[in-house]
């Protein structure tokens, strides 16, 4: 498999400076995500899976600091190191090029905004221009339709327009009115119709001018002030709504029109997760990071979401980083898997290779602790070490049955022992 690499994480070190001490959360993490693949990242609680995903977006929460390392994102055929870019640039990347699905959809959604509000916010941040242009064209079309409407309406030839409206549109409308004698419409009716039309036209003209301004000078003070006027952006909202409904439909939500107006508390867990996924894919991200998206969901809902994730890859060719602690889910969706332990990636291989021929003792232990009927349950002795004072050398050595002298002293390098099979263990390669 020689696919394009979309994201490269090289030698990433992250530390959290807490009161108890320095937590070495990530210790030399290396990862690559290729185009159109689902890369799984599996490990126990606190092994640094989520920190890895957060640091790719520079979202590590405060006591945490990215000490060193590189995160290269392929953008228009060249790699950009995200860790060296200024903050405004990263804000452009977040949600657009790299989108994230978080674990707890209810905590992630804002309870006081409706689903429509929240999804359209993402669209407005990253695709505002596109929607302004869409709104502009559809407004122009509406104007043309209006001429048609007006001319199919009326009869009274003596009617005069009182307003000092000089737009072409109305001149034409009046011309047509003079010729039409066939319809039975009273004068006052006609007058209110025309006046309403004028008001509409004024609003439309204003809206069109506003959109043009918003496209051309998005940051000027006057534009920003004008765009705050009540009901000044109706067409834009219509367009956004159409897109939100379309996204919800893609997510397989029944009755998307109604769901768009719901608030998060009205949604079930599975629905809320779908809304979050809809937000994540709304800007067609290059890379989608799914951080335990199904952990709090029931198996039947989980099955629905997993199918959805696979569809995203198949239909849109997204690259997905799928983080979970459930090996069953990994086996179900991933192409390649990385196993994390205490802040390092200990093994990375193709899914088949990893499940059939695991090399690292931790991976072996992890696979054996899956409950399987008829087999005796095995478990890894001991517990995950504290990352404040991690074990020296290989961080797994004090729980490892094969630990050698060298393991307590030297941190094993992460190397390729077979094709596409990387392991960080002294048992393999060099020393053996």
């Amino acid at each position: 498999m020689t696919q394009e690499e979309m994201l490269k994480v090289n030698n990433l070190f992250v530390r959290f400076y807490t009161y108890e001490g320095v937590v070495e959360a990530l210790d030399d993490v290396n990862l690559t995500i290729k185009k159109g693949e689902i890369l799984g990242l599996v490990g126990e609680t606190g092994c640094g899976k989520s920190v890895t995903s957060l640091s790719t977006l520079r979202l590590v929460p405060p006591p945490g600091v990215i000490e060193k390392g590189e995160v290269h994102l392929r953008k228009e055929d060249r790699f950009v190191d995200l860790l060296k870019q200024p903050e405004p640039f990263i804000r452009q990347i977040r949600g657009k090029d790299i989108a994230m699905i978080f674990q707890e959809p209810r905590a992630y959604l804002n309870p006081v905004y409706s689903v429509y509000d929240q999804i359209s916010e993402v669209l407005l941040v990253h695709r505002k221009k596109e929607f302004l242009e869409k709104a502009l064209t559809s407004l122009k079309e509406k104007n043309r339709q209006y001429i048609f409407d007006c001319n199919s309406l009326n009869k009274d030839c003596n009617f005069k327009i009182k307003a000092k409206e000089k737009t072409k549109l109305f001149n034409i409308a009046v011309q047509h009115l003079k010729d039409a004698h066939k319809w039975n419409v009273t004068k006052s009716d006609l007058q209110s119709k025309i006046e309403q039309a004028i008001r509409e036209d004024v609003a439309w003209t204003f809206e069109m001018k506003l959109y043009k301004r918003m496209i051309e000078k998005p940051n000027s003070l006057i534009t920003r002030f004008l765009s705050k006027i009540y009901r000044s952006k109706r067409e834009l909202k219509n367009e956004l709504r159409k897109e939100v409904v379309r996204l919800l439909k893609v997510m397989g939500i029944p009755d998307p029109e109604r769901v768009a107006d719901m608030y998060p508390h009205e949604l079930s867990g599975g629905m809320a997760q779908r809304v979050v996924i809809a937000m994540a894919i709304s800007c067609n991200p290059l890379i989608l990071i799914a951080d335990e998206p199904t952990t709090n969901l029931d198996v039947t809902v989980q099955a629905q979401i997993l199918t959805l994730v696979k569809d995203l890859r198949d239909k849109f060719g997204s690259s997905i980083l799928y983080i979970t602690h459930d090996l069953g889910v990994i086996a179900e969706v991933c192409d390649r898997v990385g196993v994390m332990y205490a802040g390092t990636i200990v093994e990375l291989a193709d899914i088949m290779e990893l499940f059939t021929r695991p090399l690292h003792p931790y991976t072996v232990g992890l696979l054996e602790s899956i409950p399987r009927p008829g087999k005796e349950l095995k478990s890894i002795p001991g517990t995950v070490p504290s990352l404040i004072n991690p074990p020296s050398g290989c961080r797994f050595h004090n729980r490892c049955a094969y630990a050698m002298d060298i393991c307590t002293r030297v941190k094993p390098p992460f190397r390729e022992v077979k094709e596409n099979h990387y392991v960080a263990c002294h048992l393999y390669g060099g020393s053996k």
Partner: protein
Amino acid sequence: MSVLIKVKGLKKYYPILGGLLKRKVADVKAVDGVSFEIFKGECFGLVGESGCGKTTLGKTILRLLKPTAGSIYYNVPGDILEEIEQLEKDDPKSPRLKHLREQYDISTYRGRNLLSLRRRLQIVYQDPTTSLDPRMLVKDIVAEPLIAQGLAKGDEARKRVIEILKKVGLTERHLYRYPHEFSGGQRQRIAIARALVVNPEFVVLDEPTSSVDVSVRAQLLRLFKDLREEFGLTYMFVSHDLSVVEVISDRVGVMYLGKLVELAPTEEIYKQPLHPYSQALFASIPIPDPTKRKARAPLKGEVPSPVNPPAGCRFHPRCEFAMDVCRKEEPLLLDVGNGHYVACFAVAEKRLR
């Protein structure tokens, strides 16, 4: 095998209060007419999605909740059970039945009777972080049931606490620590010790492994197995993690929206679930083996609200085999052989096998 617990027509409704006077406007039918038996020494697994009433059922059996209707018989001799059944059929108003139920049906117990019952029936909760008091030392947490039951005090209690802590894999060193000093797995061990210190006969394990990691989960499951052999316990294992239930249970019941839809020996139900809901449920378990990936059709739609469950079979709006009768009548839990019970018209008619 003798029956340890027999549940009959058990219902638990939670009232929804509304209006100015906070009067009851509707019921959440959490458990709605469930009948089954648990045999002595077995592990009865109970699976289902969240909100289907598993936990409520577990708590109601222990009388931590008062059932709305139905009866629960714990450790009642077979002949008396038969007599009760006969009387219910022949003469539901007889004074003899009333007397028997007051004596044996734990859903009618109160006061001292209930307290002494608690010694025999215990529970381990889902999340040990919330079920253990953060301001109590381990020695006090584990000794509390002994003192409340009046079983032991002082040195005697301490001795028994140490004894049980050793059984669950903790040591004397841990006595003077607070729950927050322990890892998730160890906390769950404290919760188990606390449940077992009074020497119960029946323990409800309410998702005891859902808050811990895979490797710790395996340790806990082993512990449950060992303890069961050592103390001759009977378990009711409530979980939504089907792979865990498969390993530990002898028989499994599947719940959907407050009803038991299927009940069978573990091996049989995992090999061949019969109810359409169980089929969908078991098919959605991710198998930790990439060679066995399957193309599957996930269950459509969502679980309906238990306030207004669908008429007839509760699964019919999502069921591909739904017939007219499913929309009108409620299917009964019927034996289809080998101790396999299913509540489904399609299965009963042998259209689905």
